[in-house]
């Protein structure tokens, strides 16, 4: 039984790492720009498909394929902000309108991907299939170890970035109080732009890793962003690092939950948790207070 429990634990950590990568980028954008950006999910999907396109279709070297995918993902995020969200902000749109708009963008990008690549599942055949490594009685593949490691690295990287770099500090300033930040000379539009670039870069990393691990389908973004913001909400939406904990908790809840329930309920567990938290603890576990909270 020990090995089953450790396997479930490993599966939870792997799932949690995936969700963390999604939630980190999402939270960064949410905290800085103060609206729910559903289209973040489509950036993840786009990144995965770009990696597929370069590697599996064009035959470009894997390393370069990943690099291009990441660059294009950041570019897409920046473009979404520049061409769409900025226009809305200029019209003083409320966060609800931005939410609906982000939903529209998600559908738009997903449908474009669907039209370009088709609805069937695609695989990035970079890694040879073989039995995973056995650790503490549980099996974990090298790719899964990379996923967990990446989420740790990205988290630490983001932390250092926000704490130590000028841009990071400026972002925190805008996130805390945009008006005061502007007074001291920080351009909030520039910061918004940067939050999209960095957030989308993280989404890009998530996309490539998830693409390798779970294969690609056009609607992968929708499902992932729901899990991602569930994790963010559990952790506390004002707290970027809370998202990491939220992601791990979500991973645990799902994987232990389906040990007892039929496996089809995995997503249902996530939805139920989301619903419950939104109703009873919208601040999440570690929610910082944020401006424009429940009126």
């Amino acid at each position, binding site marked *: 039984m020990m090995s089953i429990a450790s396997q479930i634990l490993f599966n939870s950590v792997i799932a949690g790492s995936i969700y963390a990568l999604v939630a980190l980028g999402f939270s960064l954008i949410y905290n800085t720009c103060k609206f*729910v950006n559903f289209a973040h999910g489509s950036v993840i999907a786009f990144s995965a498909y770009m990696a597929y396109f370069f590697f599996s279709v064009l035959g470009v070297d894997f390393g370069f394929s990943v690099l291009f995918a990441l660059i294009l993902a950041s570019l897409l995020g920046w473009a979404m902000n520049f061409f*769409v969200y900025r226009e809305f902000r200029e019209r003083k749109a*409320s966060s609800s309108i931005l939410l609906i708009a982000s939903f529209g963008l998600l559908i738009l990008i997903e449908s474009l991907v669907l039209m370009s690549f088709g609805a069937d599942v695609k695989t990035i055949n970079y890694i040879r299939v073989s039995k995973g490594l056995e650790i503490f009685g549980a099996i974990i593949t090298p790719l899964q170890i990379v996923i967990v490691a990446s989420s740790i690295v990205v988290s630490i990287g983001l932390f250092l970035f926000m704490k130590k770099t000028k841009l990071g500090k400026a972002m925190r300033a805008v996130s805390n109080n945009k008006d005061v930040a502007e007074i001291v000379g920080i351009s909030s539009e520039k910061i918004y732009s940067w939050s999209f670039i960095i957030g989308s870069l993280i989404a890009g990393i998530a996309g490539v890793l998830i693409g390798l691990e779970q294969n690609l389908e056009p609607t992968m973004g929708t499902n992932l962003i729901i899990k991602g913001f569930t994790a963010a909400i559990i952790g506390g939406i004002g707290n970027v690092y809370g998202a990491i904990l939220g992601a791990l908790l979500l991973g645990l809840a799902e994987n232990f939950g389906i040990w007892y329930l039929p496996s089809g309920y995995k997503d249902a567990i996530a939805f139920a948790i989301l*619903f419950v938290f939104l*109703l009873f603890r919208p601040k999440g576990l570690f929610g910082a207070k944020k401006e424009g909270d429940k009126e």
Partner: protein
Amino acid sequence: MIEQYLIHLLILIGIYLILAISLQISIGFTGMLNLGHVAFYAIGAYTSALLVLNGFPFWLAFLSAGILGMIFGHVLSLPIKKLKGDYLALATMGFSFVVYAVLLNWTELTRGPLGIPGIPKPSVFGINLSSNLAFLILTLIICIACYFLIRRIVHSPFGRVLESVRDDELASKILGKNTSKVKSISLMISAFFAGLAGSLYAHYITYIDPSSFTIMQLIPVLCIVIIGGLASLRGTLIATGIIVLLPEPLRFIGFPSSMIGPMRQIIYALLLLLILLYRPKGIYGKVEIE
């Protein structure tokens, strides 16, 4: 053949119209960004299908679809009383995900992903409405009835209370209105009509499965509500026609049928974005989304 095709389109317009005007009650008149509308549509569809397949008459199943939708509308309204804006949107959306997950997993009741095939066409006063034309007539009758019912509701004193909740809930409360109750009733009415629409859908398509009721199905309805303009029933009517008919020429330009689905979504998404940017009041809307 062309008549069959037009009849099909008109039936769709009818069903979408009921869905849209019911959503209009929540979003346009009460100011609640209810993104969980598809859940009531789904509940209505499954209720009606299962009842008829178990021997109940159509009119009973049809009404039950609305009533069950209404009950769930009430159930949803309780916990979301205090939520607004984004959080309300996310919570209602979350509700529709939960309903979807239940439909997918409660296989004893719903057959899960296998869906429910062979839903009989409605039988009214002993006449089996097997032809599409007959179904269209039924749909039109129901549609017109719903339209005028809802029109009466929103033009009544209660309708004005709804709009006051939308415009300034605090002021409304100060004036002594029990806004929580008002919002709950509004959601219940909205859900009732969505349930009716679900029943019509189930008996028209004769095959339902959970994939017909994902958040994607909300997009055209949301588009209609926003493009028609909030709080405008006339705008909703026109927008329904536009949204249902606009992608149809794609069928004839020679796109393979696999492309038509995503192209429709692209058209809707673009329309939504453009209207929100350049004409947020929609065609005849009185207010914008807060």
